[in-house]
């Protein structure tokens, strides 16, 4: 609930109360309040247990930057509860603690820290080697954050939104608002991305006496039609070509901008002293955000710890919020300000040297330090307080700028852009600029210059970027020499000052190696709290300048993004359905995914469907086949150069089995091609490769500049295969085409009407029976299908699915490209050497295939008969062919073949053992099953049924 004593909280609606549950207990909140704020108001102080030592952790940044408040919300793990809005009925639970946050059994580790030094997992668990799996299991169980609920159904339907803008401004603080305003006024279309639900940035929570002009910017922007403001949108990456990646609750945004202005501000960071992680120790801005954004007071009596001029300002603000200020501790030597009448003492050259309290801050120990950083004798004193506000100098939030290629230079106090990048601008705190006036001015300048860069006419020339005053820093003060144990640099991963020192002493003294070894920077906050501190420690320990140490590489995502959001692109896959889909559906089809297509796997019993095809006649929908027409004077030339077989001598009205390789001689696809006329061919490709084959033909047509047109008929035409000993009877009832064996032989094509539908009929036999593949315009496919079914009723016609087709073709020993072949299979080893016409002067893959032919096959694709009965032989597909313990090959197809009463399959085995009658073994479910190489085809070896 909102604290009534506080000024109105800007993000909340106090009149709209709601309630959620935390560990089963109801928590009151108001609309707009964050989960953590409501919990804090309800008395919760420990929000998480730390990663390694399970130390209690409370709120720190209240900006979604650190990992101190991660919770499980409605089953979603690792939600940053300090910014996540509370909602009615939410179920909030802790993570990484057992049994509870207040009492965590694993807090034991906090006392064992001597035995868990930095890199302990690299050092401790190597010997004995057999214990490693146990260690690994235990460590994995103990470490880690939230748990993913594998059963949970995603509640959000995330979609991708593509946006375009001339200028994109990231960050809606003073600099960002000013930049957006200026660019829009110059005529540019602008998108402004802001994380909060309101514009304003730090103006929303920090009192400033300057620039009332900046406070008017949100209203002015609302009236500026050229600016589109996206609130509650978080930019998490800046990619090449100025592509901004961002997310909103249910949207993944991909924003392409010609100019990007990054105004992501700056952030404070923790000071270093023992127990600096106790609940009650906040970043100063966190206290202000908690109070002014969410209406919750962080404590009653505060100590302010600062290293810059912001300390006394903060103390005044705390006073206004009704928080008593016990003292201001300033690490700088006294800048004799004189005549101060503050009601609190200000101690210069001083430092908090320890925080006390077990689960919550009770008091701090403060001491004066001499210039060497030693504690001055008798200067220690204890101050009782429940709140410590760390008002550090701001560190630029420049991650996106670094990703965009901008480089920064340290001037000792902050980082300033050192190298400009075309189309990328930095303004405000992110550029290291301090002071509201300067930030707004810089924003305006960048806005104007970005608008000019996209061709807008400026009324007056854009000013140069202002030189901003460097904040007063006194670097003569050495860091305090206090205990380094339990002085945390990285709160996410529990890395202490001691750990860093030790790692540097072990030789990990470059910032990147230091990061990898200690995992500093590698937690959920990605170095937002610890990055700068680690750099400074590294610089000091190695005697280098901060610039020389540099920073670690910034990579997307800047903030944690849910995998479901990133997968939004993949969630919405199109589905392709054949024109007969509804018929299959109505007739009990079990569906099979074939690429994007849905195909009927069977209509019940595949073995029955097989018997129907072998004994009577069957009908299968093969509309998913790739269908292409190649037309033009160079059509035959193109096909001859791309395919393995010969086309020039193919006579009109005749068809051929066809296959093609890529440039390496790897089998790419197969199908059937027929000649329709002198300059006209009709070809099919496999379902999965239809588009790839079309692209392949287009590619070589363009490369060789051949005069041919390739028309892709895959969707426009449908196809069905009528197969079985009675196929001719059925077809004859519905067509005037002469289907007699003499007039319409095997491997011929006829064009004519079937059931009144203009068709191309190919007499081919993938399933090994007399068969006709009938191609027709898709709009008429249903009519044709029904007509053939009706005609076939008396002949015992049965529709069959893909599974029956697989069995039928296996009985016939036909391979399926992609199932029986892979990215290493060439046609010679696959048993298609009869197809490869080396007498052609050139074709795709000719040279590598010639080399392979000279070398001889090492592996062969062979047919086999299983020497034993096994259940579910299809599960053998993918199993290894073994010799003893050595894998020598693999099974690619295996089925029980009802016509032959045996289990047959195809397998890749060494060429030396590929002779018919040789035995080999298949490792299947833990045992070695004997198999015998058998001659192909298994069924109708003379092809009498096929050609009759």
């Amino acid at each position, binding site marked *: 609930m909102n604290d009534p004593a506080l000024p109105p909280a800007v993000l909340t609606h106090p009149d709209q109360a709601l309630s959620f549950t935390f560990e089963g207990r109801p928590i009151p909140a108001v609309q707009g309040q964050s989960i953590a704020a409501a919990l804090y108001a309800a008395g919760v102080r420990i929000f998480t247990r730390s990663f390694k030592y399970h130390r209690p952790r409370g709120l720190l940044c209240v900006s979604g930057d650190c990992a101190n408040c991660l919770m499980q919300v409605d089953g979603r793990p690792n939600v940053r509860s300090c910014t996540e809005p509370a909602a009615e009925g939410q179920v909030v639970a802790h993570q990484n603690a057992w049994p509870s946050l207040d009492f965590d059994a694993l807090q034991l580790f906090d006392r064992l820290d001597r035995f868990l030094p930095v890199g302990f997992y690299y050092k401790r668990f190597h010997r004995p080697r057999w214990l490693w799996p146990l260690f690994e299991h235990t460590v994995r169980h103990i470490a880690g954050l939230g748990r993913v609920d594998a059963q949970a159904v995603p509640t959000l339907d995330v979609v991708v939104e593509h946006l375009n803008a001339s200028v994109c401004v990231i960050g809606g603080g003073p600099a960002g608002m000013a930049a957006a305003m200026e660019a829009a006024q110059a005529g540019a279309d602008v998108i402004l991305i802001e994380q909060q639900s309101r514009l304003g940035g730090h103006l929303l929570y920090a009192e400033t006496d300057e620039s009332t002009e900046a406070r008017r910017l949100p209203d002015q922007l609302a009236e500026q039609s050229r600016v589109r403001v996206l609130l509650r949108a978080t930019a998490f990456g800046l*990619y*090449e*070509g100025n*592509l901004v990646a961002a997310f909103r609750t249910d949207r993944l945004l991909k924003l*392409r901008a010609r100019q990007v202005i990054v105004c992501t501000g700056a952030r404070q960071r923790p000071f270093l002293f023992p127990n600096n992680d106790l609940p009650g120790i906040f970043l100063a801005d966190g206290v202000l955000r908690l109070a002014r954004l969410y209406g919750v007071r962080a404590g009653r009596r505060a100590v302010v710890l600062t290293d810059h001029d912001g300390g006394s300002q903060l103390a005044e603000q705390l006073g206004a919020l009704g928080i008593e200020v016990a003292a201001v501790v300033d690490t700088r030597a006294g800048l004799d300000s004189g005549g101060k009448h503050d009601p609190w003492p200000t101690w210069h050259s001083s430092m908090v040297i320890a925080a006390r309290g077990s689960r919550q801050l009770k008091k701090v120990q403060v001491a004066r330090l001499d210039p060497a950083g030693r504690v001055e004798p008798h200067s220690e004193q204890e101050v009782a307080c429940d709140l410590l506000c760390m008002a550090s100098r701001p560190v630029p939030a420049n991650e996106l700028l670094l990703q965009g290629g901008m480089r920064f230079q340290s001037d000792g106090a902050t980082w300033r852009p050192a190298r400009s990048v075309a189309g990328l601008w930095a303004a405000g705190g992110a550029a290291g600029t301090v002071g509201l006036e300067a930030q707004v001015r810089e924003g305006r300048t960048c806005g104007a210059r970005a608008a000019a860069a996209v061709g807008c006419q400026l009324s007056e020339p854009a000013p140069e970027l202002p030189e901003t005053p460097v904040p007063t820093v006194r670097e003569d003060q050495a860091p305090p020499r206090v205990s380094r144990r339990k002085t945390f640099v990285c709160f996410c991963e529990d890395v202490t000052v001691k750990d860093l020192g030790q790692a540097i002493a072990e030789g990990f003294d470059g910032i990147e190696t230091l990061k990898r070894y200690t995992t500093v920077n590698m937690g959920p906050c990605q170095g937002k709290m610890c990055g700068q501190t680690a750099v400074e420690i590294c610089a000091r320990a190695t005697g280098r300048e901060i610039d020389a140490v540099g920073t670690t590489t910034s990579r997307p995502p800047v903030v944690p993004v849910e995998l479901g959001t990133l997968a939004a692109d993949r969630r919405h896959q199109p589905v392709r359905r054949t024109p007969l889909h509804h018929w299959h559906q109505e007739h009990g089809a079990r569906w099979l995914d074939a690429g994007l297509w849905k195909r009927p796997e069977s209509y019940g019993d595949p073995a029955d469907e097989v018997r129907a095809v072998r004994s009577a006649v069957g009908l299968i929908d093969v509309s998913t086949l790739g269908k292409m027409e190649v037309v033009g004077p160079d059509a035959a030339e193109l096909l001859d150069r791309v395919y393995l077989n010969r086309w020039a001598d193919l006579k009109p009205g005749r068809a051929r089995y066809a296959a093609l390789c890529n440039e390496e001689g790897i089998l790419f696809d197969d199908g059937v091609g027929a000649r329709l006329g002198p300059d006209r061919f009709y070809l099919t490709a496999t379902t999965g490769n239809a588009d790839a084959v079309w*692209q392949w033909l*287009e*590619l070589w047509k*363009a*490369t*060789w*500049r051949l005069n041919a047109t390739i028309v892709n008929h895959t969707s426009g035409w449908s196809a069905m295969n009528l197969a079985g000993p009675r196929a001719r009877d059925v077809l004859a009832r519905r067509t005037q085409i002469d289907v007699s064996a003499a007039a319409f032989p095997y491997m011929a094509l006829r064009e004519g009407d079937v059931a009144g539908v203009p068709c191309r009929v190919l007499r081919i036999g993938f399933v090994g029976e007399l068969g006709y593949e009938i191609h027709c315009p898709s709009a008429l496919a249903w009519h044709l299908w029904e007509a053939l079914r009706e005609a076939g009723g008396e002949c015992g016609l049965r529709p069959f699915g893909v599974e029956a087709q697989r069995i039928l073709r296996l009985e016939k020993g036909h391979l399926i490209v992609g199932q029986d072949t892979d990215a290493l299979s060439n046609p010679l080893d696959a048993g298609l050497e009869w197809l490869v016409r080396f007498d052609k002067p050139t074709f795709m893959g000719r040279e590598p295939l010639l080399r392979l032919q000279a070398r001889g096959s090492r592996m062969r694709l062979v047919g086999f008969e299983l020497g034993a009965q096994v259940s579910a032989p299809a599960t053998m597909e993918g199993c290894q062919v073994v010799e003893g313990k050595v894998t020598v090959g693999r099974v690619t197809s295996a089925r029980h073949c009802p016509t032959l009463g045996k289990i047959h399959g195809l397998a890749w085995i060494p060429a030396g053992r590929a002779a018919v009658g040789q035995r080999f073994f298949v490792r299947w479910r833990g045992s070695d099953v004997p198999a015998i190489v058998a001659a192909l085809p298994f069924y109708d070896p003379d092809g009498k049924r096929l050609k009759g």
Partner: protein
Amino acid sequence: MSFLLTCPNCGPRDVSEFRYGGQILSSETSGSNLPGPQRERWFHRLGCRRWLAAERDVRSNEVLRTCWLEQEAP
């Protein structure tokens, strides 16, 4: 990778709309996988579905020029 390619038909488009079709190696090209500009084939998969040639600096992903594949010297 998120650079733009200018399709001769469709204009500047996100690289994700295209399919990479390999480097164009002529007899003068000394080798592949060298830093600097190289000639490549791209297919505008989610656009006009035509092949184009592009010259791209593989160090910066800057696309220096594009044209139809037919217009490119082999």
